[in-house]
């Protein structure tokens, strides 16, 4: 593969270039922050368009560091969508970010670039670099509102625990490199195939999992999640709960699909991941029950969804990995709807607790119904995407023999319905605390409708999304 294929890596290049250009432009020309936001959206669109022509190509470039296959393409598309949605959230939440200088819009560009890079990773070095690009940008974004102590506290916590995770990650990579003598995924796979899994390699795998566990916010590395979710500005919380988590799982899939795929490895990591999944599902759902602050509640909910996703990963089968991708798409739709409604509420001086949501159905049926559909989809009640995701994940786990895990998953999901229903209850039953209807920009109205209809439609007519997910997993052989 001659280096001329550089163009293929366009999305990352465009994003970074766009980011740098906008940073310069902003510092020189003092652009108004809303305009910058729109420009950022434009950059994302351009990157997306550049992606289209290369959908079917398959290539491994940069001396085996970077691969381009259907899995990577769908991953990049996913993260571009996430990027655009976060930017849109920031635009809507403009008022709440007082010192809203343009960086708040531009930084996510770099973060999205990092995530896109992660989708094509084939080497631990590139993995480390891309992961750190994402993490560090998120450190800054979480602590962006310097005037708000909560944001600062969240930033500090995220940074320290993040730092720890990075340290473990690097130590893991070091040991894997030490054991196999190479950082290439296929080399590691070859080594494991020939020499089997020695203690050093296992040690490396353990530390690697610690680092990735942090990213996915799975128990026991979830400690940061609730506080950071609550403290961070709402668009960034959305970004964390979807973008960063998805990045974690994309890497997990990449890592388990290629280097650690052979049965000898699986004998070690499958029970471990299954245990992590069970713990996350139980803790996520139980700890969310008494929560009153919605963002903190969604934090715990994201931990429980990390658990369900891990169930998919633990089933180490084609169906399992496809279900993880489908579940991520369902999770994307539901979470962003919820956060969009939250952002709109915050703009109307509404707080973040469930009580502030009360009576929303009478104030603005669209918002109430969007939030309700998001909650119902997260709770896994048909006919929404969330349900089909859970169905796939449980089916995959059961087929690969993890019967106990499915039972635990089902029980935790049942316990979980309570706090989703509490949100729905507050909105539909009680009378409004804050009076007056909520102004919703037509574009946002359109976006909400799209997310709602998507969530219902693709919950029933699952074929397109599922084909995308399955294709991606099949395509990731490279």
């Amino acid at each position, binding site marked *: 593969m001659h280096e001329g294929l550089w163009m293929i890596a366009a999305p990352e290049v465009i994003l970074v270039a766009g980011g740098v250009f906008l940073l310069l432009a902003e510092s020189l020309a003092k652009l108004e922050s809303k305009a910058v936001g729109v420009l950022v959206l434009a950059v994302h669109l351009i990157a997306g368009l550049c992606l289209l022509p290369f959908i079917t190509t398959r290539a491994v470039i940069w001396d085996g560091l970077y691969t381009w296959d259907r899995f990577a393409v769908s991953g990049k598309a996913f993260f571009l969508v996430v990027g655009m949605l976060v930017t849109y959230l920031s635009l809507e939440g403009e008022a709440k970010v007082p010192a809203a200088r343009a960086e708040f819009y531009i930084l996510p560009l770099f973060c999205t670039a990092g995530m896109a890079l992660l989708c094509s990773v084939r080497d631990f070095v590139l993995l480390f670099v891309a992961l750190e690009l994402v993490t560090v940008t998120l450190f800054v974004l979480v602590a962006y509102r310097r005037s708000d102590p909560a944001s600062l506290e969240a930033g*500090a*916590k995220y940074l*320290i*625990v993040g730092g*720890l*995770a990075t340290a*473990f990650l690097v130590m893991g990579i070091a040991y894997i490199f030490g054991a196999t003598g190479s950082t290439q995924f296929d080399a590691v796979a070859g080594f494991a195939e020939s020499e089997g899994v020695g*203690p050093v390699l*296992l*040690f490396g*795998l*353990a*530390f690697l*999992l*610690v680092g990735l*566990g*942090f990213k996915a916010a799975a*128990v*026991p*590395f979830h*400690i*940061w999640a*609730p*506080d950071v979710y609550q403290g961070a500005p709402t668009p960034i919380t959305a970004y964390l709960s979807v973008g960063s988590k998805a990045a974690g799982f994309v890497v997990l899939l990449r890592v388990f699909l290629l280097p650690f795929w052979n049965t000898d490895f699986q004998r*070690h*990591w499958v*029970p*471990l991941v299954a*245990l992590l999944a069970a713990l996350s599902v139980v*803790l996520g759902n*139980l*700890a*969310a*029950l*008494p*929560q009153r602050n919605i963002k903190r509640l969604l934090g715990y909910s994201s931990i429980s969804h990390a658990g369900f996703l891990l169930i998919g990963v633990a089933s180490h089968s084609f169906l399992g990995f496809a279900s993880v991708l489908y579940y991520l798409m369902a999770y994307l739709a539901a979470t962003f709807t919820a956060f969009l409604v939250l952002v709109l509420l915050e703009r109307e001086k509404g707080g973040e607790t469930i009580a502030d949501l009360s009576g929303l159905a009478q104030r603005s049926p669209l918002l109430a119904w969007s939030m309700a559909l998001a909650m119902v989809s997260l709770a896994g009640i048909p006919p929404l995407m969330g349900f089909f995701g859970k169905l796939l994940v449980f089916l995959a786990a059961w087929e690969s023999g993890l019967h106990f895990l499915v039972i635990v998953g089902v029980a935790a999901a049942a*316990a979980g319905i309570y706090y989703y229903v509490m949100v729905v209850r507050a909105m539909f039953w009680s009378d409004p605390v804050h009076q007056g209807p909520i102004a919703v920009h037509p574009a946002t109205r359109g976006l909400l409708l799209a997310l709602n209809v998507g969530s219902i439609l693709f919950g029933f007519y699952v074929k397109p999304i599922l084909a995308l997910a399955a294709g991606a997993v099949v395509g990731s052989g490279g």
Partner: protein
Amino acid sequence: MAWLLLLAPLVSAFLVWVAFRRHPRASQAVSITASLITFLTAIGIALGKIEAPASLAWIDLPGLRVEIGMTLDSLARLMLLMVTGVAFLIHVYSLGYMAEDPGRGRFFGELSLFLASMIGIIVSTNFIMMYIFWELVGVSSYLLIGFWFEKNSAADAARKAFLANRVGDFGFLLGILTFWATCGTVAFDPAAARGLAGNSLAPIAALLLFCGCIGKSAQIPLHVWLPDAMEGPTPVSALIHAATMVAAGVYMLCRIFFVLELSPEALSVIAWTGGITALVAALIATQQNDIKRVLAYSTMSQLGYMVLAVGCAGTTAAMFHLTTHGFFKALLFMGAGSVLHALHHEQDIWRMGGVGRKMPLTFATFGIGAAALAGIPGLSGFFSKEDILQTAAQSKPALFWIAALTAALTAFYMTRITLVAFLGKPRTEVATHAKESPLVMGIPLIILAGLAIVAGYPFFGILHYLGAQESAEKSLLVPAASLTAVILGLTAGAVGYGRATRERIVIPLLERKFYFDEIYDWTILKLQEEAARLLAWIDQWIIGFFLVRGGAFLVSLGGEMLRLLQAGNLREYAFFFALGAGGILLLLFGH
């Protein structure tokens, strides 16, 4: 054509319920014509002009075939004639009795419903069809007893009647199921009953089926509802609680006799139940002051006689007595009804007195009925009771003497109420102004009085109709004993109550009806209330609160504990993180 028997009253009941409830005139007309049609059809059938129609398959599934058809053998024809005849007379009588009651439209509708279900029982060809109409009769008696639903006592009486019947029907259904399980069919088919012959289930099946009769014909222990059923209007008591419904139990026994005769033990149990009921009812009747309650207990006692007869394998005797009893008991009730009608529903005999002079027709017909019931020779009661005593004497002598004693008691309490109510001086203001009931109530009385006299004689042909052969050795002891019993009862009654102005001898045991009601209230009802309250408490607290909400509480407790894990202190987070990493290492290297 024969379907008219069932269709006419059903259609009339439906029409009244749907359309005519608010127009009494129309509903009366519809109901009476329906009753007349059934009577004429019954006559047609009796004369052999109308044949039994083909049967329709009500439920036809592998393993169970239930048909709706008609058996019109001699037993059914006799019963049809008696029931439709008496029913028609009572319909006419009700015109007068219910004249000024605003709800009389509904009353006639319910009468038609009852008539249809009663005929259904008579003509049914299989157990399930009989069970269907069996319960429908229970429903219509519930509606009719509770006709004046504003009265709390009537509402409670209706519920009590239905529940008692229901318990009986429970036994009846179990009996049907047992019969079906062993003989493979639900039809009245003696050939199929062979399967039950040697089987140990035979007595159980027979007794379970007998439960149905206990419930319906108010035998002990399910008899408590009959006296309370007097809360209903008098035509109802006359029709249902004298002539037809209560007799259905005995008719059922005769119809399924081919099952009962398979087990002698069951027959003796039936006989003894009949005997005891007859005696106990007669004893209670002697101490009752309400004229309708006396007649109610007397009905219970006569039904005891019939059950006794069936128990002694004397189905023809039982049917003979059933028919004659139908006539004179309906007469007595209607007589009492016309007295009540005149005395503005005053039912206590001690507040009547001297009514005979004021209401000669009622007095005369009531007298004939009372005489027939008492068993005075020459009247129908004497012949049919004689027949029962004969059969009792031949098979179970002990029961014969009980029956004879009951005959004496019957004579005693009949003379008592006749003397106290109709003769002597009027004891209350309302009794003095009593005047004769209108002719529309009088005519049925006269017809029934005629029947009460004539029905017993052979030329009337009931026995011949039933196909009974003259049994040769009639022991002379029986007529002698019954005659002395009657005479004894009459004289005792006359002496006791010739010029009595108030009740002198009061026996609390009898007056309080052997305390059956109290016993039932205390045992069954209390037990049921306590059990219900306990179980409801368990359901609400143990299952509802403790298990369900307890489980939910545990889950939320778990949530609370996990929530507190998040203490917000950065250093603890780092510690947990390290702990997690250590855990992973341990796990990976553990096994």
